[in-house]
């Protein structure tokens, strides 16, 4: 495809440009009433660079990494790409998850994709949001209780997310049995298990305490103590953000049922 063909293809697919008008004719006729382009001086698809168009047209079956300097239009093309893929999506009820690291980025992409495809086209079954909200909403809250053994309250198994720096009184019930290096007994939310290194990491926000604890080399009984305390904490329905990441990792990697699911999707 040459540049004109790419633009033609995208414009027809995403904003429904008719075949007998050029992008600029489309912009000045249909586009005048369409909020999609009425705020812009030229057709937003026709103005894209060759590299941007290639990225949008790249296959989503493969991994593609988009790397460019600030202000070069990454978010814009990701929005365009999302709109493009959602418009030609055939795998309902499966959907596309557009995941970001910040709420802000998610909002911007959602807005841009909505401008291209129309707000009604980018919702269910698709998802645009942060990776955390996706993990929490689709994996952790629905299924964490399977791993943690939390029995739920009034039929509700939602995790109560506790900040790792919290010093709330109820956390006294979830302290380790043994003290650690003259720093007292760590509460279950003040440390987490790092699946990658296989180590416990202390992160309570209190720097000196964390430093002392992290510098200890832990005996086996201490590890068991930490493990049991964490299990007790999670069984009662609590978890920190780091715990939730670990739980999701366990669910997704160790569970045949999930593997089956993801294959179907």
């Amino acid at each position: 495809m040459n540049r004109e063909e790419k633009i033609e293809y995208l414009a027809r697919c995403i904003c429904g440009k008719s075949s007998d008008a050029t992008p600029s004719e489309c912009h000045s006729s249909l586009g005048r009433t369409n909020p999609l382009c009425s705020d812009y001086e030229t057709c937003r698809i026709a103005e894209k660079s060759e590299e941007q168009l290639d990225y949008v047209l790249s296959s989503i079956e493969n991994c593609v990494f988009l790397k460019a300097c600030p202000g070069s239009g990454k978010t814009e093309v990701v929005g365009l790409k999302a709109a493009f893929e959602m418009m030609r999506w055939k795998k309902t009820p499966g959907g596309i998850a557009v995941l970001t690291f910040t709420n802000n980025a998610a909002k911007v992409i959602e807005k841009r994709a909505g401008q291209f495809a129309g707000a009604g086209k980018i919702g269910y079954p698709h998802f645009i949001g942060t990776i955390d909200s996706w993990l929490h909403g689709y994996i952790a809250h629905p299924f964490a209780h399977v791993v943690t053994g939390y029995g739920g309250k009034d039929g509700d198994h939602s995790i109560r997310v506790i900040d790792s720096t919290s010093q709330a009184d109820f956390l006294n019930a979830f302290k380790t049995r043994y003290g650690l290096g003259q720093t007292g007994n760590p509460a279950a939310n003040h440390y987490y298990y790092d699946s990658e290194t296989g180590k416990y990491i202390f992160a309570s926000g209190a720097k000196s305490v964390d430093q002392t604890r992290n510098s200890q080399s832990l005996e086996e009984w201490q590890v068991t103590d930490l493990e049991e305390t964490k299990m007790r904490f999670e069984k009662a329905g609590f978890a920190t953000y780091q715990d939730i990441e670990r739980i999701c990792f366990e669910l997704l990697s160790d569970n045949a049922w999930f593997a089956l699911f993801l294959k179907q999707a």
Partner: protein
Amino acid sequence: MYLNELHIEGYKGFRNSFSVFLRKGLNVIVGENASGKTAIIDAIRLLLREDEFGHSPVTESDFHRPFDPSQEPAQAFRLRAVFAALSDKEHVAFLPWSDMDGNASLTLLVDNKPNPRGRYKRTLWGGASQASMFEWELFDTINCVYLPPLRDAEARLSEGKSSRLARLLKNLQHQAIQEAKQKGEPLPLEKEVHEFNEQLSSDKDGAIAQANKLIRTRLLESLGSVFGQDTHIQFSEVSFSRIVESLRLLFFPNIGGASSPADFRALDENSLGYNNLLYLATVLAELTETHDETDYLRVLLIEEPEAHLHPQLQIRLLKYLENTAREKNVQVIVTTHSPVLASSVSLDTIIQLCVVNEKPRAVAIRSCGLTEHSKAFLNRWLDATKSTLLFARGIILVEGIAEAMLLPELAKIVLREHKELPETLEDAGVSVINMNGIYFKHFMQLFADLDGNGSENIPVRCAGITDNDPPKKSTPTPSALVEGKNHALAIVQNVNSTTWSRLYSSPLKTLEYDLAFEKNNIQVMATVLHDNWPAEGRIKNHLHDLASTEWSTKSNDDKKYAAFSILRRIESSEIGKGMFAQALAAYLALDDKEFAVPEYIRKAIIWACGGNPDES
């Protein structure tokens, strides 16, 4: 996928956790009044947000309120549905609603804390956690339609905002309406009505234009040109929904018989029953024909489909619903009081509701541990009369017509001595079911876990009365018993060790023989026989002799000849068991004659009426 389980807690009559298990296709919920049938339907409606035009707000009376004023009403109610048998596609779509078994669930929690404006906060979530992702678009793929028990079919099919007909038309045209809206073009129907209106008003000398002109003139005269309004007379507004809302359904008595549209008549000239059928047809069309492939679950709730229909139509309708459920993949949930309906569907579809110790309980007949053989037998055997056993508070199973006729009268005699029990079988809500044979094994399995397999059973007291059936010529007496050949005797011990069932057998021979052995009963029975014996002569004289003897002091040996003789006359072609039973029952009902009831029958009656037969 289908709605497999419904759990209710704190809602209406269900204070404690209540569960009902439903199946794919047709479900028929039967049970006496106030057993919670409607509450189940309402719970499903609330959960699936079905409301027939308008809102179904939660009110104070939706929370369980005990009749005992010292007890608190429920703090909240919780409704939970579990959906089973999800397809691959559904597994993907309902992932956040799923558990590890692959079943999806939906929970509604309503706290009994109304806000200052009287509204209750509802929390709805899919799957295990409230904090999970909940997509309304997904929820909306579940389609639930409800038909209330008191249907105003005429109103629903006539023009107006609440017209079912309009809803069907709108749903059928859903796609076209959306497309036309996007393009900003009118629909063909809108165009035609518009043109028709133009035509009407273009005729300057026509009556309509003239009338309009007159009205305008009067308005202008009375209000002046500043306050005056403009008017226009036409056929309805031109938006699609207004047009279809002003359509009405007409009928003609037989299909294809009308020669022109003018032959059809308005529904107010039609019968109630047929109007209901027309209504049902409209709703079914809406549910089965207007869905797209993303509708995962379709549920049709019908309360009392028998309303206004004669038995044959009831059966026809239910068979049709059963087929629709199967072929169009619609889950149909029906509540009924009609034994006709209950007897016309497969036993597997029936769910029996009853209240035990003020707690409602639902038992699906399919989980009563009936063998395939018993099920096939009962399916054929249950007719409208026998299926009353699904609605009774107590049941007495008998072998023949004689027992069925006599028991209500014998029960009056027995119950006279038991002031703690109701006076008659009708008062006690006890049905006598004539099985026309010795089929206790099949019938009693419904109420008794005979094989000890731990199956569920209908928690209603069931008593069986059976004959001893020794050899035909034998003349047993209480002091010289003869072993019976009745195969039902083998299960007596099994039955009597269950919670809800008892089987009592005659110690001597058969009903009439055993009746004759009691006190002075021979006198009464011989009198009835004598009065009904057709021919004068030796037998009639013999009966007269028996009837004028005092028997209560006679020996067993004297009695056995008389009893045998009486049984022979009863079984003879001149009288017959049924005829004699009817005559004796009439005699007992009229006269306050002394008549003694054998122990085994007495026990059966007391058991079925809820008493303790071993106490007295």
